[in-house]
């Protein structure tokens, strides 16, 4: 039996989600939930959802309590403005509600809000990935995979048939022939493979503020693409004058100094693609974030490498230029020269946190 309360509970949940949706722009811009990355569920604090009444404020209020204590001794803290009913004497305070949403739901909301089209994986339905499953038994194998139960059974069978099994002294001694081992079979799985390569300029001109913007934006890009593809792979490249492949954590935290040579990152990215993600089997997404400051002579090289090696290989190449107090921001102008010829290339300028929302829309709005 469905209970009458389900109806009201569902309605309440809908209202809560509506609140999140209304404030999505705010949540997108502030990195409130980034700390919870890696979990399937994020909890989001939602400003109070309740029915307002005429109520007393704190000033001049009080109550009666019981216990020890001198005059002037504090018995409880007043509540912050907006925290809800705060009269220690009368009613318990209302808590800020935390709503739990799965990343999928969040991505869906983002998709709805930004009107992002679903991505059609490039025609690689036929591509099979192979997965090993431990679901068979073999007579040979390493000790670590020995199947104790099967081995025991086998030995028991043998001893009974040989007549050497003694009920009063049931000692079972397995021989080499009795041993059984777990083994695997490779199961082909149809899958659209997807990989994201993030590149970020960590040269001296990129401050923490700029990196925060990159972090937030790539979190949302991640969330969206993860919904579109199962098991998406990610690689991270940081560069100043030379490029390094790093792990996710380092990517967001490194701070270096020095000059900037974007072509080094491109070369690195391409080598990662070649190594891990053969382009005819993978949907590849390349995101580059920089303040647009590049070593002048490097620009020509960059464009050459981009058109020759990166753009043909990937579904989407996105360049996000964050505004920095130091950088010249020239690079985007260079890229604009070729953007007409490549429709899988998207450029976006991110002036501040508020621009993240629109920038995500620019990047992912093409449905590639």
């Amino acid at each position: 039996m469905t209970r009458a309360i389900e109806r009201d509970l569902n309605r309440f949940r809908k209202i809560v989600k509506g609140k999140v949706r209304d404030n999505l722009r705010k949540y997108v811009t502030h990195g409130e939930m980034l700390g919870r990355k890696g979990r399937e569920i994020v909890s989001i604090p939602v400003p109070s959802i309740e029915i307002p009444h005429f109520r007393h404020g704190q000033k001049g209020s009080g109550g009666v309590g019981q216990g020890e204590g001198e005059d002037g001794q504090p018995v409880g803290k007043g509540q912050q403005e907006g925290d809800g009913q705060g009269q220690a004497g009368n009613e318990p305070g209302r808590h800020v509600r935390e709503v739990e949403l799965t990343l999928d739901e969040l991505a869906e909301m983002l998709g709805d809000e930004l009107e992002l089209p679903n991505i059609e994986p490039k025609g690689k339905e036929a591509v099979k990935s192979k997965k090993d499953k431990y679901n068979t038994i073999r007579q040979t194998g390493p000790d670590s995979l020995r199947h104790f139960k099967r081995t025991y059974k086998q030995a028991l069978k043998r001893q009974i048939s040989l007549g050497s099994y003694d009920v009063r002294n049931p000692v079972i001694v397995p021989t080499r022939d009795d041993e059984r081992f777990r083994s695997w079979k490779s199961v082909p799985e149809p899958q659209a493979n997807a990989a994201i390569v993030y590149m970020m300029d960590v040269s001296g001109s990129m401050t923490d503020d700029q990196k925060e913007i990159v972090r937030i934006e790539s979190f949302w890009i991640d969330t969206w693409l993860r919904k579109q593809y199962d098991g998406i792979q990610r690689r991270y490249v940081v560069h100043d004058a030379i490029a390094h492949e790093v792990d996710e954590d380092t990517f967001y935290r490194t701070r270096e100094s020095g000059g900037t040579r974007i072509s080094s990152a491109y070369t690195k990215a391409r080598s990662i693609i070649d190594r891990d993600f053969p382009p005819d089997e993978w949907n590849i997404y390349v995101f580059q974030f920089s303040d647009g400051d590049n070593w002048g002579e490097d620009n020509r090289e960059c464009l050459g490498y981009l058109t020759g090696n990166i753009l043909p290989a990937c579904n989407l190449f996105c360049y996000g230029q964050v505004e920095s107090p130091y950088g010249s921001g020239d690079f985007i102008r260079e890229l604009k020269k070729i953007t007409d010829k490549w429709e899988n290339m998207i450029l976006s300028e991110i002036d501040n946190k508020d621009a993240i929302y629109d920038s995500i829309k620019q990047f992912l709005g093409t449905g590639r």
Partner: protein
Amino acid sequence: MVVSTHRPLPPEIRDLQDELEEIARNYGLDFFETIFEVVDYEEMSMLAAFGGFPIRYPHWRFGAEYDELTKGYSYGLQKIYEMVINTDPSYAYLLEANEMVDQKLVIAHVYGHVDFFKNNAWFAHTNRRMLDQMANHAARVNRYIDRFGHERVEEFIDACLSIDDLIDPYSPHIKRSQKAASAVKKSLEARKSESEQPEDGPGRFRSKSYMENFINPPDVLEQEAIARAEKMQQAEANRSFPNEPQRDVLLFLLEHAPLKDWQHDVLSIIRDEAYYFAPQGQTKIMNEGWASYWHTTIMTRHALDPSEFICYAEHHSGTMATSPQRLNPYKLGIELFRDIEERWDKGQFGPEYENCDDIEEKKNWDKQLGLGREKIFEVRRVHNDITFIDTFLTPEFCARHRMFSFAYNNATEYYEIASREFYKIKKQLLDNLTNHGRPLIRVVDGNYGNRGELYLRHDYVGVELKQDYARDTLANLGKLWSRPVHIETVVDDKETILSFDGTNHEMKPK
């Protein structure tokens, strides 16, 4: 939908019920027939969210409440042992997961509550068939939802609920003129009759010309015309403002707000339910105290098996726990009842005792009157929390229970212990109980500035309104009144009028 999800009670609980009912009756408790049901925690949370009733009209706040209760339970923060509703017969719900000793305690406790519902004067005017009434309300609201859409009805309910505490809990007990009692009905009839004006001119019957003077005697017609004019004048006067400031804001809105028929009905539903629940708010301390008094009496003298003693003691003391920030109504109630019983047993009351100056003599005062039991039965019949505290809280009691008053300190943003003086504690406690610790608000004028605007007044008694809430509530009130609304209050120690004109809030000094 069925109103009750009644299931046969497990035989061992059935036996317990019979046993405990017998004991309770022998003590003179007088209760409605009580029907117990065993429910799991989700059902219990649902019932609690619904205020004890299995069927309520659809509204998200029940869902919110349910969400909070079930979460609290699954995190181990709270647990509801029982729930009982004031109807005849009374329904009580027991938690399936309770141990036997808990069930005993709870059943005894429930009989205390039901006795209180039946006999306390403040419950005398509650609808004992509220179970049906609630289901009826649900059916009506559902019908409106089907006809006018979920969002629209819900939005309207939200607005009504926002002011559902602006009622006059004393009004059911006051016999004013017939007018007040049937005001709601009248306002409904008035709506109907407005559209059914006779065509031939009021009061005049159709007649042949030679019969005219007999069928429509001129003097009668004249009298009727005068009466009608008076009535219209009266109605006009009613429309503009109440004769004296009126606490029942909901009634005023029912009579005068420009509501559609379905809105009128929904508002009257909200008002009915608010009045039904009001006495429970007015008697929380007494009701819980009374029920606790009886569960301890019955458990410790009769029902408790020695093997259950520790378990019982733990649960009982858990219920009675005190804290510095919150007065526990169970504890305060039971101790006051015990104190009254002792005082009347020993004769520690009346002028002779009051005027005695010798502390030692007062302490050992015992005239062996044995009137205690009789007295507490009388107290449970006539008092509510305010009169209960006002009449029976004594300085000795406050000192014995280490009571103090506390107040909010603006500078430190903490509540701090203010005093241990009897007079101040009592005053603070009565302040908190008056109108359930909520601001007193009345309608002063329904035609403010001769522009059909609604003007309310907050009776300022030292505590200001919570500003953000006040603004939101005013906006909701505006939805009902459809014209600008104002409330006179005090902001930052200055008399102020808060206004809402449908789009903007305004705040100006009075």
